[in-house]
């Protein structure tokens, strides 16, 4: 599913306290592309991700995903959009502590029209957690929790995967493993992936690398041959 942003502004606050998180951002992301968005803190990376995920609204400009103008969606429309099109992977995993790994995935699977509950175990197996599906989050390591979060994002087979600092809370080895997983999945399922990070080294794994600074895209480059995530170092 293609993403197209045109003249997108996002402003927080008003008057002299207004903060422009995004300034006149234009971006086109074709289907199946893994785009890494790099930038320091406060550069607007997460804001961009939130706008694409329709958990926030633009101040000005237009975002179209799969030909749908997100601004045209009402609250219920946004819910449907997220349910059908977007998978989120957060920095802090955000798993429900009272549900097992499998149940965390099933919870989201239940939302899908084709009831993807049956897929939950398969997806968990795919992220390497076949033998940990009945464990609760507190019984899993950080890497395992993030893999559950990825499985949760993938179970509804969304065309777009939005990953916000997915390795931010993980050690180097685990982080690299998670990135490889994301890269493999996006290739297999031809998903459009937006991966936000402040870690420049991660940029090498993307088909495309966008650099954000103070709310503006200052660089938009393509990697001719993206590197395997498992070979990255930082």
């Amino acid at each position: 599913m293609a993403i197209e942003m045109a003249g997108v502004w996002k402003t927080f606050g008003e008057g002299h306290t207004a903060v422009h998180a995004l300034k006149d951002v234009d971006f086109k992301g074709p289907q199946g592309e893994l785009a890494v968005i790099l930038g320091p803190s406060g550069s607007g990376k997460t804001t961009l991700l939130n706008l694409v995920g329709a958990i926030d609204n633009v101040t000005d400009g237009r975002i179209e995903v799969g030909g749908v103008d997100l601004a045209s969606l009402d609250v219920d429309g946004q819910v449907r959009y997220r349910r059908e099109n977007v998978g989120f992977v957060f920095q802090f995993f955000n798993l429900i502590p009272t549900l097992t790994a499998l149940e965390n995935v099933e919870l989201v699977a239940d939302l899908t029209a084709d009831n993807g509950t049956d897929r939950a175990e398969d997806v968990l197996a795919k992220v390497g957690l076949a033998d940990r599906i009945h464990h609760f989050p507190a019984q899993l390591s950080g890497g395992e929790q993030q893999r559950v979060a990825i499985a949760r994002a993938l179970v509804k087979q969304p065309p777009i995967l939005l990953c916000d600092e997915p390795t931010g809370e993980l050690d180097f080895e685990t982080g690299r493993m998670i990135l490889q997983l994301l890269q493999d999945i996006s290739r297999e399922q031809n998903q459009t992936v937006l991966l936000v990070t402040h870690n420049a080294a991660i940029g090498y794994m993307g088909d495309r690398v966008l650099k954000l600074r103070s709310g503006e895209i200052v660089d938009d480059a393509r990697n001719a041959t993206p590197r395997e995530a498992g070979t990255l170092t930082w």
Partner: protein
Amino acid sequence: MVKPLQRKLWRDIRRHRAQFIAITVTIFLGVGIFGAAWDSYSNLVASYDQTAIDYRFANLTLAGGDTAAIADLASDNPGVESVETRTTADVAFRVGDTKLLGRAVGIPTGDQPTVNRLDVSAGTYPSNGDPAVVLVEDHMANHFDLVPGDTFDILVGDSWQAVTVGGVALSPEYIWPARDRQDIITTPDNFGVAFVSEELARSITGTSANEVVLYYSDGEPNDRITADLSSAARDLGATNIYTREEQPSNNALTEDVKGLEEMAIFFPMMFLAAAGLAAYVMISRLVHAQRPHIGTFLANGFTRRQVLRHYLGYGVLPGLIGSIPGAIVGVLLARTITRLYTNILSIPLTVVDFYPATLLGAIAFGVIASLLAALAPALVASRVLPAEAMRGETPSGGGRRSLLERLIPPLRRIPTAWRMTLRGVGRNPRRTIYTIIGVVLSLMLVLVSWGMIDTVQNLMDRQFVEIQQEDATVFFAGPTATEEVAALTDIDGVAAAEPALTLPVALSANGEHYETALMVLPDDTELHRFADVGGGWIDLPPEGVVLGQATRDLLDIEAGETVTMALGTGTTLNAEVAAFVDEPLGTMAYVGRSQAEALAGSALPATSALIAYEDGVDAKALRNTVTDLPQVAAFEDANVLFDLMQRFMILFYAFVGVMLVFGGAMAFALIFNSMSVNIAERTREVATLLAVGTERRSISRYITAENMLVAAMGIPLGLIAGHFAASAAMSSFNSDLFTFKLHIQPTTYLLASLAIVVVALISQIPGLRAIRRISIPKIVKERSA
């Protein structure tokens, strides 16, 4: 200058103001009720005590026997300050067309008696001279609008003698106009008191003085003197002996005030416990959420003591803010309550004092309750490990399947979202338990209050509908032949009439004594039923006496044992206790007429008649017809008495209404806090669920279900605890005058449960509305939501 930590404290409180207001209001109510009830209680006790001193209320009353000898004996006792002999006669009065059972109490003319002085509120105290000038007791004067100069009639011998009202008087003996201990509730149409010259009183009875009243040194009770004189008086034939505490009016009032004392402890305890629980839940949540801040404080050199003090402040502050105004309002309210109460009851003296101990105690209770609530979370805060806390790692409880899922495995297959709901209940067991306790406390408060209404209503039904089958009691002016009673059925409207003979009796067994009335009824009486203590109905036995169940403890006696009955006539009999009866009002003794006549060796007259109306009778017309009969002194319509009691119930309803509102407020405060914290703790989960496409209304449903599940868990426990608390509360009012057996209607349990459900539903509305305001992008990015 306000220190930064204090500023933080205030700002935190402002940020969570709804929850803190809920805690503060609960403390305010608890402390306020304590202040109001305790000071009212203290004021009323002081009013009664002062009335007793100022009006020289008798410490001991000895009726019957050789009064002259008893008075001499008492005079010789150095602990007795004043002795009065007087004549008291129960006699018919006629005020206009109304005949009533009156009591003429002899007083000296010229000077007030030295014992049981009167407060003459209108007119003047009778001077030496005309013996037909009387003082009318306040209740009777008010009911019949009698003022000085009016006249009414007193039956002297066979003829009515007109007397003139010289004044209206209040007496410490009749603040509550009780006829006797077995007849606490009277209607002014049927009972009135007049203070007449001793000369007139003696002409009514045709005898010399029949009562001795004693006032001890400084009016102080003295058990030793009471025991000695009672024993000696019994030997001299006294048949009715009672202390100031046992005096019918005083006893009824003391029971009433006792209720206030219990209320002053029970209800505030409920509120302060609820406030404490709410504060605990709130402060625990704050400490949990502020672990990184606490770590930072400690890392920057704050001492653990400072951290402890800081978080104790979250308890102390609402404690102070709630209890200081609560105590002041309560204490001020007590003054109004006291005045209202003494005014309604016409207590001659009203003492309204300021009790600093109540004010300070009330504030202390409020602060201590909230301080205790803050202690555990504050200690947790002071023991935080800084490095761990600053990393933002909060010890997370490992998830587990809910108890229900473990007990009922099929539940593991319900939709995941509902499994989440089930597990949410056990997620923070301590908070769940506190919420349940909150529900339990609320239900206890409601059931204790509501239980009083149901119980009293049931008591009245039992007494006036199930036990007393008569529609009216006709009191005769003197002993009347049973044939005359039978003749009452000739009157239109009278379906049945049964003779009753009521005699004062002193029961003795195992060295214990109890003065009551012996009622002789037809063997096969149909107008009075006897409820066995076992729960069934019994007939009057051909042999033996049937006693009210309170005598079982008072005389330490069991069925089959022998009781000695000293009758007011001077006769003493021994009889076997055939059974004990469960009667809510009074503690009487009953025997069948055949047995009584066999013992007496002759036919016995009747002092009253129990009558049943024909259907559709005009009760007022019938009353007029019956009271026109010359031998009839008074006519007491049971329905009027029942209605009078129903009117008293309005006060109960008002009280219960207030308690229901307070109970609802308490339940709201606790459940609201608990549920707000529950929702606050899971904002990140909610935001995540929203981000992945779950609808807000679905999330609201899950949270509502979880909260309602917790509330529902508390309901059965609350109903059980409420039942026992209500039972304990009611039994504390039990005496030989009243037997309160808890009776709560099933609908009461149902309505109380429904009320809790409604409060729980309402109290989570603010939290659910907060879900609508959740900023998904902000929350999902936070380290700890």
